[in-house]
């Protein structure tokens, strides 16, 4: 399952953002400065799952700029949130296609929230994939929905 999620991540980031993530090994440290944006989408169905993304604000801004073909200074907070939600949605959709999941699995509306560095520290992501993107860390997580 995580392999398919990894493949979906590469596909979405490369196609829509012209960003080329590199997988980080477990325990590999890379410092990212907050605040962070956390976006997630629930996949309802026989087994309910929640897939999400967590990125520092700097990376969210870069992603939005690449997505919209704008400069980073032009990007608003709302655009960063919107792009993160859209990205999570695309990731989950691509993931379901790769799984060849039945129509019983349905994507719900994505949600987004801001986290301070403190709040992020308190969180424990159960199953996560970490990537280095533009010298920042992008975390992808899967939870029971």
């Amino acid at each position, binding site marked *: 399952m995580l392999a398919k999620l990894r493949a979906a991540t590469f596909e979405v980031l490369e196609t829509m953002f012209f960003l080329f993530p590199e997988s980080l090994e477990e325990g590999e440290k890379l410092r990212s400065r907050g605040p962070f944006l956390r976006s997630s989408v629930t996949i309802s169905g026989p087994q309910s799952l929640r897939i999400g993304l967590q990125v520092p604000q700097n990376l969210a801004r870069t992603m939005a700029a690449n997505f919209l073909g704008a400069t980073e200074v032009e990007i608003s907070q709302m655009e960063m949130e919107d792009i993160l939600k859209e990205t999570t949605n*695309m990731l989950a959709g691509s993931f379901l296609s790769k799984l060849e999941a039945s*129509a019983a699995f349905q994507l719900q509306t994505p949600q987004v929230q801001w986290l301070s560095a403190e709040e992020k520290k308190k969180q424990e992501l159960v199953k996560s994939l970490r990537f280095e993107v533009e010298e920042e860390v992008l975390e992808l997580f899967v939870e029971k929905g």
Partner: protein
Amino acid sequence: MAYNVLIVDDSVTMRALIRKILVISGFDIGEYFEGANGREALGILEHNWVDIILSDVHMPEMDGTALLKALKKHQLWRNIPVVLITTEARPEIIKPFMNLGVQDYIQKPFRPETIRQKLTGILGEARTPDASEIESCDF
């Protein structure tokens, strides 16, 4: 010939992206219209002629399915081609939309060439840019 395009998506940023890609694609676009859901799209159609609709599926108030049903009931609008722009392309998800008369679909993530190819196939070749033109565009 210039084509009038209606983009229906609840995400402002997605609408901006699609619009940008359409510009890059080199089609002779007449007017752009944008709606955040099916209801807004129908409101736009009441007062404007549209040649093609690019629509999202999941939208608040009136989703893609309800929009398609409304279009099919209308004498003037039933023949307007609709292309779905969707995160989900599983056959079981897409088939009901095809049965409702959707012309084609584009799965997100997509490349600009994909939109260009789909529109060319449906509307015909108005003006197709060189590959070098597309590659040199920064979007």
